[in-house]
């Protein structure tokens, strides 16, 4: 998918997001900067409501209504880009709960052809590309699956399909927002292994939003910890687990490690 000319680095700089409550501006994301590199996973962790998902969405100018980006830029290999131009082209997005992300009355084939058509890909190559992406996402029996509707598929299959659609876009970067939260443990492990393979073998650069430090341990290379709209600590995954410096990071780790008897936080 990616070649030697593929972009290597996506940098979000000084992102600020606010909304208005009772006539007063409220800051939701405050001066957030992130650095996503090809072939790596950067995990963005923190409590629910701390602004993780909003950071992903707002950096691509896809924030929900009533929420506005006030500051910030996004650059690919040092060149600043308009968020709307890179969304779906250089950055693909997958979300939690794949069932709500698909149109219930359309087949997988219809979903799969929509993106390439919108990007102006030649009609002849569209299906071939989708088929290759589905194989990469671990979906066998492609012919049968392309004819299925979302309700005929399991959550794990739908999440693989969402990843396949992201891969078919050819985007070198992937924003994955809680991609395994609603899946069972076994499917979760398979999806995490798939994402790990895609970063290592295909050089995908992943921004992974999660609240589960187990997911971080399984997949992340670097970790940014967010609290109340701000990044409070960024470090390599080994350092975050072995030498957390911020109290919020330590609390996240303590809660996580309390589920593994016989271990305690560093």
């Amino acid at each position, binding site marked *: 998918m990616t070649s030697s000319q593929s972009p290597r680095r996506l940098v979000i700089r000084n992102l600020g997001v606010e909304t208005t409550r009772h006539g007063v501006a409220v800051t939701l994301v405050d001066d957030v900067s992130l650095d996503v590199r090809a072939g*790596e996973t950067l995990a963005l962790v923190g409590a*629910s409501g701390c602004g993780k998902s909003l950071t992903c969405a707002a950096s691509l100018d896809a924030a929900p209504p009533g929420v506005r980006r006030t500051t910030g830029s996004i650059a690919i290999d040092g060149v600043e880009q308009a968020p709307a131009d890179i969304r779906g082209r250089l950055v693909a997005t997958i979300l939690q709960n794949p069932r709500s992300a698909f149109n219930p009355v359309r087949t997988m084939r219809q979903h799969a052809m929509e993106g390439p058509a919108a990007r102006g890909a030649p009609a002849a190559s569209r299906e071939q590309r989708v088929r290759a992406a589905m194989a990469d996402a671990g979906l066998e029996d492609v012919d049968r699956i392309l004819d299925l509707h979302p309700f005929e598929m399991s959550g794990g299959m739908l999440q693989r399909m969402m990843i396949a659609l992201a891969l078919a876009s050819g985007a070198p970067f992937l924003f994955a927002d809680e991609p395994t939260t609603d899946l*069972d*443990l*076994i499917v979760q492990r398979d999806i995490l292994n798939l994402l790990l393979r895609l970063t290592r073998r295909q050089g995908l650069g992943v921004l992974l939003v999660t609240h589960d430090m187990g997911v971080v*341990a399984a997949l992340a*290379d670097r970790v940014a910890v967010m609290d109340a709209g701000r990044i409070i600590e960024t470090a390599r995954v080994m350092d975050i*687990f072995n030498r957390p410096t911020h109290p919020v990071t330590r609390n996240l780790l303590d809660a996580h490690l*309390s589920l593994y008897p016989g271990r305690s936080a560093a």
Partner: protein
Amino acid sequence: MSLLAARGASRIYRNGPAGRGGATALDQVSLDIAPGECVALLGRSGCGKSTLARLLAGLERPDAGEVRFAGRSLSTFGRADWRAFRCAVQLVFQDPVSAVNPRETVGQIIAEPLRHLRGLTGVAATGQIQALLRAVDLPADAMGRLPQQLSGGQLQRVCIARALAAQPQLLILDEAVSNLDLHLQIQMLDLFARLKRDRDVSYLFITHDLRLAERFCDRVLVMCDGRLVEETRVGGAFALTSPEGRALQDAILPAMPFRRARAG
């Protein structure tokens, strides 16, 4: 004597997906839950866990076999029996948004079981609602809010408070803490453990997260394709032995990162 039991309970959904005929969701399941006991029900998506929960809570009837509460089959229950049963057995669903009336405030949602099952209204009810909100770590001013004004995790805790309002003897938690942040999951488990200690409340804890089951439960049941395939006591060197149990245990996420070969 067991508080709630299933005896050879089966459930077949006759209108399967895409009209593909009957699907056996539950196949002759038998289990017992004793007073004060906490039982984990483990299995992957679609294995029949939620169907079993609905049968045990009396929301659906088994096509074969029976569900017994305090020694009596639910099929023999009259109106007064059902009322007592609803008081004693409460269920918390996985998806809180679909489990509440979007037009009722949090206060109204929690007041319902207080009024119908415990006969509490007015000031007595308000006091209880505030105590329940405190127990699930929600602010008192949440009472006046509508479901859409709360986050998913907050709304799930409203559903837990509503279930506790009935002062149940058995709480069936169907992936009820899965969507919460870990520290809230642990906080809820601590609350449940306290109720278990103080009031001998029993739990059926349905989850796919073996880590939580191990922390909270006395016994783990593993379900696969509508059947119970394993029963193991928690404690000591805890290890599941059935193929399905092992598959679930092997899929537990690592506690710590391991050094990986890095790309490029």
